[in-house]
């Protein structure tokens, strides 16, 4: 299974470098060939979250309130 990647090879190399990864050319090319697998994951998530009011599963909660020790106590 393969499909065209949206990132150019150069942009891919730059993203890896920005994260501290500097593989050799052979490794970089083999990873680039597998990039479509990650882009497919991204597409699934982006297509499925069009509802703008949907909040993340883990939202911030005040620690004291979460522990049942809020102001009312």
């Amino acid at each position, binding site marked *: *299974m393969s499909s065209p990647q949206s*990132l150019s090879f150069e942009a*891919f190399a730059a*993203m*890896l470098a*920005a*994260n*501290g*990864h500097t*593989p050799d050319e052979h*490794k970089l090319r083999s*990873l680039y060939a*597998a*990039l479509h*697998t*990650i*882009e*497919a*994951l*991204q*597409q*699934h*998530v*982006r297509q*499925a*979250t069009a*509802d703008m009011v*949907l*909040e*993340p*599963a*883990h939202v911030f909660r005040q620690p004291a309130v979460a522990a049942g020790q809020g102001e009312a106590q």
Partner: protein
Amino acid sequence: MTGEPLHFLTIAEASDLLQSRALSAVELIGHMLARIEAVDPQVNSYLAVTAERALDDAKAADAALACGEAGPLCGIPVALKDIYDTAGICTTSGSHLHADRVPTADSVAAARLKAAGTVLLGKLQTHEFAFGGPSWDLPAPPARNPWNTDHFTGGSSSGSGAATAAGLALGTLGTDTAGSIRMPAFFCGITGLKPTYGRVSRRGVSPLGYSLDHCGPMTWTARDAALMLQALAAYDPHDPGSVDRPVPDYTTALTGDIRGLKIGLIRHFYDGDDEAEAPVQQAMQAAVETLEGLGATVEPVQLSPLQTYHACNMIIMMGEAMALHEPHMRATPEKYGEIFRDRMMLASVLTAQDYVQAARLRRALAAEVAAQFAKYDVLLTAGGWGPAPPIDQMSPLYVFQRALLTSPFNVTGSPVASVCNGFADSGLPVGMQIVGRPFDEATVLRVADAYENATPWRDRRPEIA
């Protein structure tokens, strides 16, 4: 005594023998250590065997048993995936990065098993940091499937699956972020229980994806999983994910009676969204008929596509894993195995937006599954695509290439048991997943136990010797 060799006793059987003093813990542990020495070189399930400590602990267990004060796990030989911290015992996470790391305190799960009187046989093989494997460039070679040592065990709790199936421990602990308890359970033909997120403390266990990581038992039967969960389940105020909920008596829930239970079958995950191999399809059909024969009602349910759940799981897991490992990968990349490094490098194209989108999607997917439990007591689906593949044919990037049937229930945090439901013509096992309401491990185990007792699969063992 039962007719089984000691190493193939279930925990429940061994417990009965120990409690009645028909068997001593020293005798049992001595037998298990000899079995490990003889058999483990074929399956590579142990990274370290703690023989001296095990024999000392066995003597202490016999003393407690003699006083009549011992619980059901006293004297039971167990082993832990080597990402559970153990005080004074090297805990490597299967990585050169932690090759010499000796924790000063036990993980909560290890401490609770110790307090229950279990005897630690040693530390078990794991994919690197519960993610990178099977690899040949780590401190030890990968574990092998006891049903056929040319084949994969599944990961990442690879040693836990292999040791439990091969009779090298009566119970083990694994961890599960995308299926790492349930995939080895599926491939090795054992019972793997991923409890509800928040049920078992993760403190002292090397994290992979903070919001997806679960700790749980891997055993031969659902009854044994219930016995281990009883010791493990507890609120831990120092684990931010832990939830303070009552812990029921899991073994009394194993009534064998599932008449009237409503089961939702998520068939489209393995027959529609993607196609499982024939042995899995056939085993699932037969399992549905068995459960109906036991008096349950089985109806199809429709959820979002499996690939949507998997993408949500993978993006959250990779985001959290990269946040955790980035500083070490920058400083000492050579201390990681190639598979771990490659997966992390590839996933570094993921953005903060991807992570937040996945977290938003997670809320919707969790609600979708929760809604099914208004109508159904448990959900049922396949545990994997087919029997264990040859280990040398595993793609290093397999976790990105095909959706895992296990990953949806890390997204939802649901309790799930992976149960053996048959064997392919090759002799390799296959299995299914039984999914419950949050914190309702009791019903999951009740269905799993009833199914195991109604089928012959628990009578078959690997012929490794």
